[in-house]
């Protein structure tokens, strides 16, 4: 699961960037440790029960999978060039996701916490704005809505 990588202090944690199964947040967190990283930041983007005043039943995420995997990988690589990260992983769910479930997770680990926070926020911001992944909200009144702005 862990291989050596281009940076002496970085490890490559092999995580599929897209998953049709529920994301294993605790399992991913367990992978994201490094003896030189004193700070681990984990972001979990979760499905809310309301959006714009409408009650949400569930979401469905659709991705262009091969491009989404490539783009998330390259966003994570860009973050590793900007900050001295020991570990950086990101995973986005596809398919039906219920209220309270995790739709996307980003974990960054590094020696100093300010860099772990900054890199984490950078990765999720770019994934949300650039990766070919779309959400469709299914509301309690039976209507649905594709896309729209980010929920968080």
């Amino acid at each position, binding site marked *: 699961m862990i291989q050596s990588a281009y940076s002496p202090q970085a490890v490559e944690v092999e995580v599929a960037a897209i998953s049709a199964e529920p994301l294993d947040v605790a399992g991913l967190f367990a992978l994201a440790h490094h003896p030189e990283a004193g700070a681990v930041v984990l972001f979990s983007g979760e499905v809310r029960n309301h959006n714009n005043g409408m009650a949400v039943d569930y979401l469905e995420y659709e991705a262009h999978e091969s491009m989404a995997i490539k783009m998330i990988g390259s966003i994570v690589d860009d973050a590793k060039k900007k900050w001295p990260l020991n570990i950086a992983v990101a995973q986005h769910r596809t398919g039906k996701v219920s209220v309270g479930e995790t739709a*996307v997770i980003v974990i960054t680990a590094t020696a100093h916490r300010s860099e772990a926070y900054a890199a984490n926020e950078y990765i999720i911001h770019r994934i*949300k704005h650039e990766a070919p992944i779309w959400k469709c909200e299914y509301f309690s009144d039976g209507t649905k809505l594709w896309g729209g702005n980010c929920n968080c």
Partner: protein
Amino acid sequence: MKIQVFAVLKDYFDKEFELGAEVGDIASLQSELVRLNPSAKGILQLCRFAVYDEFVDNDFRIEKNDTICIFPPSSGG
């Protein structure tokens, strides 16, 4: 050529279809799709296009056997 559309575009077109008309580049493809379904004009102007997993510009030359993916603005998460 084959067309694949995603997300809200599926409310306007089949998810995947063969385009019979000869279109030379992305700009002409866009015009042809608006001709097929005029109500898609607004959303098509916001879309990105990709061929072989790479984004392409409006002047990208389409080959006969290419598959063109059309992406509405994304907003994952």
